[in-house]
């Protein structure tokens, strides 16, 4: 079940990446291509059968997990800026691009590096579950989740506002899919506080959230393709 969800999420992210290639070549919204590509990398590195061989190349010291964390930070920063601008929310944009947002991402990045170098993560372990009892590993995990959770939390309000507006149905469908996805990403933080850490629910929620966000982007692109041509504005 979880494996199916993971591979579906990876397939969706890769499909989005391929879909962005023509726009990337034309120079239209290049950031989105990188978001899709890095998101694909994050999802791929969350799947044990892809994580283990990749980490083996890097010396089996779980450096791949550090790459995963930084990719996810980049994905969330780029995506949050785009989405906040798209839904015209200056306050969210400020929370992400402003001093607070940059401070959060800087603290999380430094935290990741510090906890990684001050602990011994030898022996590949997807998601670092094999080191779950080390306090450093727990801190590392929290730093890794903190920024995505923060960025997603900033995007729940603007997307929810669009859902309850009187926009066309397709726009509201896209906004609701994005909103649910961001809310679920944010929800993984409190869920992790609940007793079974590597539980089924946390994984289902985090990969489900990726599917929701990706679906939201797909719906936005569908509405973009169907957009009225110039000059169709009515008086």
């Amino acid at each position, binding site marked *: 079940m979880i494996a199916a969800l993971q591979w579906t999420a990876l397939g969706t992210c890769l499909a989005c990446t391929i879909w962005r290639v023509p726009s990337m070549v034309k120079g239209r919204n290049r950031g989105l291509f990188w978001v899709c590509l890095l998101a694909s990398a994050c999802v791929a590195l969350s799947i044990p059968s892809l994580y283990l061989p990749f980490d083996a190349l890097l010396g089996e010291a779980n450096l791949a997990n550090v790459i995963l964390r930084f990719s996810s930070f980049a994905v969330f920063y780029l995506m949050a800026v785009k*989405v906040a601008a798209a839904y015209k929310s200056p306050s969210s944009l400020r929370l992400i691009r402003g001093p607070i947002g940059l401070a959060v991402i800087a603290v999380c990045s430094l935290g990741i590096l510090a906890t990684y170098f001050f602990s011994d993560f030898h022996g590949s372990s997807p998601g670092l579950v094999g080191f779950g009892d080390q306090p450093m590993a727990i801190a590392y995990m929290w730093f890794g989740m903190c920024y995505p959770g923060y960025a997603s939390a900033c995007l729940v309000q603007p997307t929810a506002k669009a859902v309850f507006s009187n926009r066309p149905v397709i726009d509201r469908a896209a906004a609701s899919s994005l909103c649910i996805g961001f809310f679920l990403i944010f929800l993984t933080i409190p869920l992790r506080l609940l007793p079974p850490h590597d539980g089924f629910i946390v994984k289902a929620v985090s990969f489900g959230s990726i599917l929701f966000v990706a679906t939201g982007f797909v719906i*936005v692109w569908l509405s*973009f393709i169907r957009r009225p041509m110039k000059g169709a504005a009515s008086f």
Partner: protein
Amino acid sequence: MTVPAKLFQQWLSSVAGTTSHAALCRAAGIKRSTLAQQLVRGRVSVATVAAVSRSLDLPVVASLAVFPTFTDLTAGMRPPSAAELLSQISDTDLLQEILNRNVAAETLSEPIRVHLSPVPHRSSVRAWLDAVGTADLRQKVARQAAIAPQNLSAQISANRLTAELAIESARIANVGLTNGLVATGFLSPAEAGWAPGAREGALWETSNSALVSLAAQRLDALSRTLRRTEADSAAARSIWENLG
């Protein structure tokens, strides 16, 4: 807005005799499958009644009055007031009339008569409701018909109004019952009993001051609508620019 299929069948046999449904549909310009579906569901739309009635050269209002919900429709027909007539003239026609009168005043000649565009115009429903009642008319209509006020507003914004609501509004506003159906485009002015050229007559008899103030109200409403559509399209454009 529908009538019971059973009564529709009875009415049909009384007015069309043994004519087949296929022939009726062809003459009325409605899809046979649409009629079949409406009959199966037990509810035939009033649009079907109107279309069949027109194809048989029967007066639409009298045909509708056969059905229980519309029995008082014929009796409730009354000529439209001047305000109602003016409400069914489009914004551009009103402005054109003002321009023509202005030119006539400057050149000391008779004003050129505007050739009015056919009803209904783009905001005919809103204009008619504003012409027949005060602001609380909409609330009364929504309460009477037991629908949510925002549901009614949505219809008005889209320049639509179900036949039931149009008749109910006319009843509450104490005007001719068929007049609202002209504003929604369900009936032609002639079918609703409006005299030919009544709109033109009302327009010519309107004083300059009343005409200008009416046009000002219309432009005000138009600017509100435009502002909304511009905001909507700006929101959509922002999404496409950032995420498209």
